[in-house]
């Protein structure tokens, strides 16, 4: 089926099987491999993208569901080589180590409310696993980017 959506601000049309995972559509059809797969079953959050402003696990979203939606992936955050505030804070605070959870983590952080205290940060990121950092530096980065 034909699916059209706005991807990082640009209109995009793809022809895919309706049940193809949005994750695969993004990676294979749209060539955006920034979105990662860590489990394929909705547990790790490495595949997190924003669908109409909401953080979702793209491994659980069938492509047909993205029809007409607004999708933002990690590739859509930086503008002409300038890192977004959250990306910059992740870099400065050491919140990315191996980096495989990072795109999903950054997208989940984008969906957090402004000036979150620690509890909402922890709740908001609870669906995103990181095996490297122990999460402390990720909290630092989110606090730095979104304000305490």
């Amino acid at each position, binding site marked *: 089926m034909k699916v059209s959506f706005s991807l990082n601000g640009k209109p995009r049309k793809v022809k895919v099987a309706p049940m193809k995972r949005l994750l695969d559509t993004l990676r294979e059809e749209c060539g955006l491999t920034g979105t990662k797969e860590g489990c394929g079953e909705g547990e*790790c959050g490495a595949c997190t993208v924003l669908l109409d402003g909401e953080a979702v696990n793209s491994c659980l979203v069938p492509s047909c569901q993205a029809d007409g939606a607004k999708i933002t992936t990690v590739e859509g955050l930086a503008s002409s080589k300038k890192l977004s505030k959250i990306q910059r804070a992740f870099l400065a605070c050491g919140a990315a180590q191996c980096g495989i959870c990072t795109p999903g983590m950054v997208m989940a952080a984008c969906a957090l409310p402004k000036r979150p205290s620690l509890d909402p940060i922890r709740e908001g990121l609870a669906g995103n696993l990181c095996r490297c950092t122990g999460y402390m530096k990720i909290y630092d980065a989110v606090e730095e980017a979104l304000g305490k």
Partner: protein
Amino acid sequence: MPKRGAKPKAKPKAEQPRLRTVGKNVDRAEGVDKLTGQARYIDDLVFPDMLHGATLRSTVPRGRILEVTRDPAFDWSGFTVVDHRDIAEGGGRNVVAMIVDDQPLLAENEVRHQAEPILLIAHADRARLAEGLKHVTIRYQPSEAVLDFERAETVLKEIGIARGDLDAGFANAEIIVEGIYRTGAQEQLYLECNGMIAVPDADGERSGMTVYGSMQCPYYVQRALEGLLGLPRERVRVVQTTTGGGFGGKEEYPSVIAGHAALLARKAKKPVKLVYDRHEDLLATTKRHPSIIRHRTGLLRDGTIVASEIDLKLDGGAYVTLSPVVLSRACIHATGPYRCPNVRVRGRVMQTHTPPAGAFRGFGAPQSQFAAEAHMDRIAEALKIDPVELRRKNLLRTGDVTATGQTLKDSVTAEEVLDRALRRHEKALRKQKAPKPGVLRGRGVSLFFHGSGFTGGGEVKLASRAGLELTKKGVRLLVGSTEIGQGTRTMHAQIVAETLAIPYAWVETADPDTRRVPDSGPTVASRTCMVVGGILARAAEKLRAELGDYDSPERFRERARVRLKSGPVKVIEEYRRPTDVVWSDETYQGDAYGAYAWGCNVAEVEIDPVTYQARCTHLTAVIDIGKAIHPILVEGQIEGGSLQGIGWALYEEVVMRDGKMQNAQLTNYIIPTTLDTPRIDVEIVENPYPGGPFGAKGVGECPIDGPAAAVVNAIFAATGRRLDEIPATPERIMKVMAGPEVMERRPAKVSVQ
């Protein structure tokens, strides 16, 4: 709320030169690529004409393979199929080259564990692979499998350490305390699964092979492929791609999956991508060795340890892999950081019909120090003395001698990290609110150490090489150590920039490609900073001398440009053994490691009396690593390693049935999420080791040695019940707190002489 990650406390030293780059939190070298999604991991790469591979695995733990049949009715066109016969036909040997050549890359006539690879298929359409696998049937004649390592009889490796006179020691003891401790398997759970792409050289099948992939040790993979493909070394090229975590899980296993991809690629004459999904990765790849460790300790009434007998068994699984080395580290660290004149450690790796265990951060030391530190608290209970004072009485100090007979000379800080951790923890929790009614709370301590680099003569045998080449901009590092998230590139560049007195931004790193960089030894064993960083520092000094004295970075550049006119300038240095390190593999006596990192954890744990769920609510980690080249990276190592330790202590359980992992998915193999993670409060201690670059020792592994014991000791403090087995799941806690065993609960087996 106390600020996380306090500034490292450097010891004021008289004439410490002012450092410009080392000790600073520069931006991670490959950070922007990772933040923007531009970094290319193996699954992000596509080659023209590429096929996808899949692996058919055994479904019995042990048996003879009677027949492998491919369904003749199935359409096999477009499939490439490989089995063990292709290896011999290609002139190679069917072994995974490691310490002992006992593991076939593809099973021949027998299988020795579940999920053992037997047959490989590849197809251009990934979706067709599952179908293909379904149309192959294997008939087995199963035989009896040994699945319980405590009952296993075959010993894969045995190590003994003995010092002093054990019998005399026990004869002098006023009290003897015994305990038995068990730890379970643990999955590394790098978030990027294992994966490789093999690309045959365009001109015919004998000409060579390039393998790209997620790995820690490109040169291990190269060595493995050489024998497997029957190719001379120079025709096997291995390139590490951006790697999404390793933790030991990508030390030896990549040789297997790289071999499989290469066999398929050679036969198909096309690039083949073999990337595991999470389920397959969990089922088939190595895990931390389960252990059972018995301690028998003789003491004086004042708490002085006079005799220590330790028997340690690890479950090695079906093949040897790296078990001998894991056992070695487990044994050397088995006493914990304590003095004892009379010691005997006996360690064995048992063979079972389960998937082979392998490298995992800490490499045996977390198991043996979990036991040692849980046992210390049992001793304290038996002697009715404060666990901290018991530790203080026995801990290793400068000039003390370890179980291997090593006299500790430099940077020995067990007492300092203990004191700092206690103070820091107390201060952070001074205003802690009382727990909710009914909730039990306790505090536990663990003290630990971790040798940096390969054991004994290991570094000499490795003879690692690393170096630099001049570029127009500055220098390029030529180093085989891999960046797997820990910050290798950044930290190495800092060491070199500092030594050359040039800006960090002028230093770049060549991609880890066996064609471009020398063999710097594996990226394991907390050696990348201390050992390889040291080689790089030496190379930088040599380059600096070669360029003649320059007083500014600009002058460096001018000289470099002049030199470059007459051709490339490269400096490669090799590991040099510090002259005072002596070791014997025969007696297991000598200087096991040039330097040790020292650590102390204090854990606050709460237990819900209804659900029996234990939660760690605050963990203090104070670690002496000599010198933090990049404090934020170091804190990241400590926080991440600590959390893996907490996961192992409380949540992560590999459930096996019939030799097969039953919970091979992230829904039920649980690693800590943000909600399970306590505040991890880190303090870095810097007592420089003269043999390391700028005083640095190893950091990667030490942090995972301590949390499990601190957590279990805190559970004891909260409940008054000892738990001698991890993970401390609600089931296990309930068993010791409320189960029928409570009545017959055996207190510490104590005999008074």
